[in-house]
């Protein structure tokens, strides 16, 4: 089975190669590399990844310009058709700015850029991104961000929790995120945004392999679909 994936690169993305490498190592197939100015995605994609970085220099707000770029209109359409979309770090910011995920990512409460490994709790192990984890499992994944403080109004937070759309939660206070939220799903469960970087935990040489199961989950979900 070939896994047709795409990694979107915006001007200022800097984790796109890591993401492409992770997808290739886990799936055995190199992803398509798509540029922000492209108006169309390759046909028949099984997975789209929005990588970390500082798209458009974080001008206006993190992710704001990227969310209005030509390729994002195609990504939004694909997400609405049910294609799995993963946004990591800046990719998560792009997903909230584009309206595919609720809430917003504010400046870290402590004002400092946070760059270290953090413990995460897997809150939902039923999604297509988390099926290979078990609920309540603690995993270690690095974060590297300045704007990772997840914010949404109380009603939205209650809805996210009630519907099982909190995918990951920090095991400690990292950035001031509301209810410790590190990753959220859209209502259909095919869009995941998260601040931590699973693509940086694929092989033992990277210090751990806790991110690998996320990509394996997506592959598995596709194979059993």
């Amino acid at each position, binding site marked *: 089975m070939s896994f047709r994936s795409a990694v979107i690169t915006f001007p200022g993305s800097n984790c796109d190669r890591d993401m492409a490498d992770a997808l290739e190592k886990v799936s055995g197939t190199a992803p398509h590399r798509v540029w922000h100015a492209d108006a169309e995605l390759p046909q028949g994609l099984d997975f789209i990844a929005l990588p970390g970085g500082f798209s458009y220099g974080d001008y206006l707000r993190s992710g704001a310009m990227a969310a209005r770029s030509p390729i994002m209109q195609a990504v939004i359409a694909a997400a609405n058709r049910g294609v799995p979309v993963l946004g990591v770090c800046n990719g998560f910011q792009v997903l909230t*700015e584009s309206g595919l995920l609720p809430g917003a990512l504010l400046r870290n409460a402590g004002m400092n850029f946070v760059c270290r490994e953090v413990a995460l709790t897997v809150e939902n192990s039923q999604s297509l991104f988390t099926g290979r984890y078990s609920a309540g499992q603690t995993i270690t994944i690095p974060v590297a961000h300045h704007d990772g403080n997840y914010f949404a109004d109380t009603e939205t937070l209650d809805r996210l929790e009630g519907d099982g759309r909190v995918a990951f939660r920090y095991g400690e206070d990292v950035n001031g995120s509301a209810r410790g939220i590190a990753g959220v799903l859209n209502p259909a469960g095919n869009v995941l945004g998260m601040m931590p970087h699973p693509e940086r935990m694929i092989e033992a040489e990277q210090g751990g392999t806790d991110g690998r199961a996320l990509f394996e989950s997506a592959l598995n979900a596709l194979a059993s679909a």
Partner: protein
Amino acid sequence: MKVRVFVSLKNGVLDPQGRAIHHAIEGLGIHGVQDVRAGKMIELDVDDTVSDEQLDTMCKQLLANMVIENYRIERLAA
């Protein structure tokens, strides 16, 4: 015509930048500042064909993130 758009964080949204500025003001030895909120001002030079409605659209869809921010439009006399 010059138009100024003021974007500010909504009440209740934590503003770490404002807090840092507040702290720095106290460092100047000036006391009595109760609170500091930082925002941004975006100045546009628009011609007469740009309607109020279009300005509103710009603000809602791009200049402000309505989840966390409010905006105010100020038209300056030519």
